[in-house]
């Protein structure tokens, strides 16, 4: 299987779905002629024309709102938010509208829109080009939320998102775009929404997370196995809404020691819900308190390099936390 970059996986998912289904189109700031500020949509306007790879005015609420309207009209829009930090002007359209269209109309109308947004830091983007917005949308029923860590999942999940009959937020980690490459089949495939994936098997500790930090966990796990004989079991949630309850409980019970990890800040993050699920189902199977290793409860990361480094998770921080848990 060819090894491709995470960003290429996303690009090809859009391209192939646009070839397959004339209802699919992309819209957003700079997604057309320029091909996106990260080049995620590069080539789409050449291939599909301006109407299907549309440069919009600088207005996120309209990008989301127009996409929602077009989705209700029967199209399959993929709206890009240039940075997830800039999707907050669209919150009302996402939470009040997209999430509630099916429910409020008693299934008469639906809203199959995909909203893509690059999340996360580590790129010297400073406060407003580094945030993780998951917690803002996570508590809203009616939305689905995806956050792939690998190229394989990025492509397979994005295809699933485009074909999904409900609104999907697709959070791609901008640091993964070129850092992460893995095997991706040539042909069409999908990754099911709502299913987590075991990235690594182990019997000593369980790490549950999503997106970029899982790669730090994998590196740390390899070192811990070699250096300390500690075998970590690592679960990639992949879908944040709906969470894969069974997958979480299975992974947690496997070792009885759980470390939850994400880059979004700790308080009110996805990790709280994962911990709560485990605490309400598996209390007696745990051999250690449930730990969370997350971004600090600080508005956003500084742009200066020591500040950013201090803020971000990395292999060392993961390794320390994992070893501590193993030794508990």
């Amino acid at each position, binding site marked *: 299987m060819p090894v491709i970059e995470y960003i290429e996986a996303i690009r090809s998912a859009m391209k192939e779905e646009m070839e397959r289904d004339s209802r699919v189109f992309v819209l957003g700031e700079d997604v057309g002629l320029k091909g996106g500020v990260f080049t995620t949509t590069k080539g789409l306007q050449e291939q599909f024309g301006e109407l299907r790879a549309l440069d919009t005015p600088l207005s996120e609420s309209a990008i989301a709102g*127009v996409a*929602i*309207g*077009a989705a209700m009209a029967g199209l399959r829009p993929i709206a890009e938010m240039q940075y997830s930090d800039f999707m907050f002007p669209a919150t009302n359209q996402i939470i009040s509208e997209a999430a*509630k269209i099916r429910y409020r109309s008693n299934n008469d109308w639906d809203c199959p829109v995909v909203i893509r947004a690059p999340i996360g830091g580590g790129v010297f983007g400073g406060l407003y080009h580094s945030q993780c917005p998951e917690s803002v949308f996570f508590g809203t029923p009616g939305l689905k939320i995806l956050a792939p860590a690998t190229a394989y999942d990025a492509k397979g999940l994005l295809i699933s998102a485009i074909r999904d009959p409900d609104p999907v937020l697709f959070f791609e980690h901008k640091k993964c775009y070129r850092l992460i490459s893995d095997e991706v089949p040539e042909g069409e495939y999908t990754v099911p929404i709502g299913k987590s994936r075991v990235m690594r098997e182990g019997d000593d500790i369980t790490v549950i997370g999503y997106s970029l930090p899982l790669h730090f966990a994998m590196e740390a796990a390899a070192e811990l196995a070699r250096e300390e004989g500690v075998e970590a079991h690592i679960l990639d949630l992949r879908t944040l809404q709906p969470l894969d309850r069974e997958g979480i409980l299975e992974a947690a019970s496997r070792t009885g020691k759980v470390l939850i990890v994400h880059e979004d800040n700790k308080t009110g993050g996805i990790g709280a819900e994962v911990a709560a699920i485990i605490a309400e189902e598996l209390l007696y199977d745990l051999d250690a308190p449930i730990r969370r290793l997350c971004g600090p409860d600080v508005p956003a990361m500084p742009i200066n390099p020591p500040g950013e480094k201090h803020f971000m998770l990395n292999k060392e921080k993961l390794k320390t936390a994992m070893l501590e848990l193993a030794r508990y």
Partner: protein
Amino acid sequence: MTQTGAVRQQSRHAALGLTDRQVIEMYETMMRARRFDERCLLLQRAGKVNFHISGIGQEPSQVAMAFAMDFEKDWFLPYYRDYAFVLTVGMTLKELFLSLFAKAEDPNSAGRQMPGHFGCKRLRIVTGSSPVTTQVPHAVGFAYAAKLRGESSVAYVSFGEGSSNQGDFHEGCNFAGVHKLPVIFVCENNGYAISVPLSKQTAGRISDRAIGYGFPGVRVDGNDPLEVYRVMKEAHERALNGEGPTLIEVMSYRLSPHSTSDNDLAYRTKEEVEAHRKNDGIPAFRNYLTEAGLWNEERENELQARIRKELDEAQAYAERAPFQSVEDAFRYVYAEEPSSGEGR
């Protein structure tokens, strides 16, 4: 109307291409909406329903606008006072009462949403919500879909003058302007946003905002349905010709309190309301029809009796109808069956 002499001037409505039958239907629909609305107010005062939000005073323009649309091809995104509009495009009184009583059979939301929150795919009425103005970008999305598919379809979207101060108005209008999309933005300016009068909502004219988006804005007297029809028809043609959007500001006055929860005398006087009641477009339109020889007292009496009967039957049906069962109350958060994902 019989036109006997060649010198006889063409009537206003004929000049607009409206038949006698059509103007009569327009009148009947305004009246049906008015009587329905009054009944709702009554039912709320009688404690039979918790809430009603009234469109009284805005019916003539709403009917006229709907008459300018194509019920087979266009898309409708009406706001919560548009009873007369949705009645014109085909919603029935029974359906409106089912919504008022929040019953399972209500096509708008199965009694989940407040009354006045329209939505009915069968009638091409797009589901709406309470947060104002969110529907404006949606309408632009429908218009964009029409353009992308090469369909001859126009999106109608309405909202109040207060609501035109939301960011979504600006963003939606501007987007449609850039892409010359087939959408008609209708601001139903009834002078108040709950208690806040127009003068505290904006220092400009809503219709003038179109200038900044590069398309025409028109202000029209909402009590003159024929003029409203003319303006809408023109906007509809512009849209179909690929000339882009139009913003229409329909001037009216909100004769009822904001909703049944509102005590409007906290911020306006009875006298002000009574003064505006004199401009009510419905009796004026009846006069027009009478002068045109199309209407008389007998027909009026027949109509009132007919509407009363319709209302009684529809209300009785809706009152008796069941609520959505609690087993179904939490359904449709997501699709129950995954779609095939088939392209076309």
